[in-house]
């Protein structure tokens, strides 16, 4: 990024961060005002797309009510030039309408007069009988429906029949349009957030506001949500579809395509070996993430996972196929997708997010046993802040351009490592190295810990000795004793001391100390992973 760009960005960032409080009549039109504000602030300047992308990376889009337009821009459903929005929107909507008409065959309604009854009857064995097609389609629809009814079971939005119908239509049209891949499990969870966002942001008051640009109204037309969801989903799948192929399916497709192109295809040296490798794209991608990126970023962790015998495919297939959808709650996931979509469907940051997620839980992975590690990877702990995660991923990819976002956490990690090595000299931490954000972070952690604690206490099956937070936190000095923080839970000596509340001043005192923060952090993680 050039200096000029950066200057421009910082001005705009400042501008938006001082978002004016909503007007007096917020009660009824609260969100709408934000929508209008967003429109004027985010979309009305030259070069606005660059700014939007910066916002997506910094987490600022989380507050926007025009995220669906940002996604359309990032994924290329509409171009940056707003004068082309109406045309682009109409084109993609017409395409979806045409696909629906083409694929939604219902022979019951086919009432042409001159029908050949040898073909047009339900018992016909003819290949091109519409009935034959109808029955085959029914099977695909049944498979899709099985997954749709299981989409985000806790979200009422996805329990609505019309939403489920929309999902079925979209996934079915995609399956027919891409017969090589058809429908694969997991696609429904890529579609779901897209549909959710489009519904959440479409508002009648946008349509009724004469002061807003006609282009905006067309792009946000509530009547075209399904078509727009299909367009966004198809663009996303352009980048994702090969992750849904299994090895055999993939080689079948490659072979078929090669036969098709055999006349003009010139085989490059060694090509055949590569093509017929009996592993799937996703397996190869995960190997690459593991063997190259993770190894570079954190060699110790790389060897640890290898020694444990946990291949990245075990947990990573789900991470990638669902774009981390099960690893985060919906709002956090949307924020993560903002950042991932910045580079369009090449999803360039995905691999770095993957590795960052591993390094964030490295302490447990390095010290705990196979089962604990496996459970942690299969059920990723939910507390990390997405903007922090994205900043770390950016830093991992390009340290020169993106500074390390939270060096103090590094520091804590360093403490942890030191705890395991008997060199007390390294344990000294200078007070003045605790910048304000450490204190801020400490407060957050302490608050989180308290609520986790309360929950944990309620669950009677937890042995009290594991709840002795005070024993661990009141360690005055870790003076070379080793085995402090990380292993505290297995060494609590059966202490059954009940939790006594800390006074406010004690609490203040404690959380100013990075070492204590680290204990809290470790403990919080322990609770989340093991007890809840």
């Amino acid at each position: 990024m050039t200096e000029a760009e950066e200057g421009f960005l910082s001005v705009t960032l400042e501008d938006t961060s001082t978002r004016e409080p909503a007007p007096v009549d917020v009660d009824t039109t609260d969100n709408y005002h934000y929508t209008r504000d967003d429109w004027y602030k985010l979309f009305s300047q030259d070069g606005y797309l660059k700014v939007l992308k910066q916002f997506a990376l910094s987490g600022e889009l989380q507050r926007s009510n025009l995220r669906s337009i940002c996604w359309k821009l990032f994924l290329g459903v509409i171009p940056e030039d707003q004068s082309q929005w109406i045309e682009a929107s109409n084109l993609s909507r017409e395409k979806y309408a045409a696909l629906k008409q083409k694929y939604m065959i219902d022979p019951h309604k086919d009432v042409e007069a001159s029908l050949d009854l040898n073909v047009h009857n339900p018992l016909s064995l003819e290949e091109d009988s519409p009935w034959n097609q109808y029955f085959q389609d029914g099977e695909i629809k049944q498979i899709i429906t099985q997954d749709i009814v299981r989409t985000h079971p806790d979200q009422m939005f996805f329990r609505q029949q019309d939403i489920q119908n929309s999902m079925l239509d979209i996934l079915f049209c995609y399956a027919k349009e891409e017969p090589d891949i058809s429908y694969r499990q997991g696609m429904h969870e890529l579609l779901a957030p897209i549909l959710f966002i489009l519904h959440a942001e479409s508002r009648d008051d946008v349509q009724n506001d004469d002061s807003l640009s006609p282009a905006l109204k067309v792009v946000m037309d509530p009547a075209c949500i399904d078509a727009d969801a299909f367009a966004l989903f198809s663009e996303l799948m352009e980048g994702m579809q090969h992750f849904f192929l299994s090895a055999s399916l993939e080689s079948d497709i490659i072979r078929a395509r090669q036969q098709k192109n055999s006349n003009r295809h010139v085989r490059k040296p060694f090509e055949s070996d590569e093509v017929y490798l009996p592993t799937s794209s996703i397996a190869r991608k995960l190997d690459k993430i593991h063997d190259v990126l993770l190894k570079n970023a954190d060699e110790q962790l790389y060897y640890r996972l290898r020694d444990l015998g946990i291949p990245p495919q075990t947990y990573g297939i789900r991470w990638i196929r669902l774009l981390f959808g099960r690893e985060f709650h919906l709002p956090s996931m949307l924020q993560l997708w903002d950042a991932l979509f910045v580079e369009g469907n090449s999803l360039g940051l995905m691999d770095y997010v993957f590795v960052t997620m591993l390094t964030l839980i490295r302490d447990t992975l390095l010290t705990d046993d196979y089962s604990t590690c496996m459970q942690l990877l299969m059920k990723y702990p939910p507390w990390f802040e997405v903007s922090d995660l994205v900043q770390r991923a950016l830093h991992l990819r390009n340290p020169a351009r993106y500074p390390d976002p939270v060096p103090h956490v590094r520091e804590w990690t360093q403490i942890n490592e030191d705890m395991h090595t008997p060199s007390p000299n390294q344990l000294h931490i200078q007070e003045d190295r605790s910048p304000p954000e450490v204190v801020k972070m400490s407060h957050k952690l302490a608050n989180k810990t308290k609520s986790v604690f309360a929950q944990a206490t309620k669950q009677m099956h937890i042995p009290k000795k594991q709840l002795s937070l005070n024993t661990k936190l009141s360690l005055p000095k870790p003076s070379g004793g080793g085995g402090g923080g990380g292993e505290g839970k297995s060494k609590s000596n059966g202490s059954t001391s009940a939790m006594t509340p800390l006074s406010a001043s004690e609490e203040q005192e404690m959380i100013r100390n990075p070492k204590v923060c680290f204990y809290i952090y470790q403990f919080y993680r322990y609770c989340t992973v093991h007890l809840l």
Partner: protein
Amino acid sequence: MARATDKKYDHLFQLLLCGDSSVGKTCLISRFADNEFRHTHINTIGIDFKLKLFTIRDKKIRMQIWDTAGQERYETLTAQYYRKAQGIILVYDITREETFRNVTKWLRNIEDHGVKGVKIILIGNKVDLESERKISTRHGQKLANQHNIKFFETSAWKDINVTEAFTELAEQILAKVESGGGRDRGSSSIRESAIKLHEQQPTPATKSHGGCCSGGSSN
């Protein structure tokens, strides 16, 4: 470094569940491992993992249960887990004919990828939906007999026969391990490390112990 907890069991068994999508594999595991049931379960993508500590004949068994996605029949990854499993639970849905028809395909898959002599049981799930039943008990039993494996009809929802089925499989594996015919990581090795892709350990032939399951037709 091994922790004290690693030794708290006598045997470590690895089980794998397979079968078509939506037959109730994840629900069976949830019922067995956590004694819970949810009507709306999210579907499994790739593979999932659950632990259960379980006691049979005073032996503490630590079970690593691998849950596979129904649509992943041809996935190379799944094949790697087949090779590790000492026991496989093959599930169909008694209300959906095609899931029963596909049992044969799954069995062929197990034959291709699983270790020789792996213990298998067949489960017809969702007997709580008796009015929608498409596959009779007799049909299920007959298929199981043909392949010389044990058969159970279960309901993860109503908690019918679930523990019994898992126990039967664990019993079979335990019998095999105790007779010296099977791999067992728990007692021989303290360190628990289950899935190693490069590890290819053929199981010694155990024909003398009755091959697969001698009790196959006794149910």
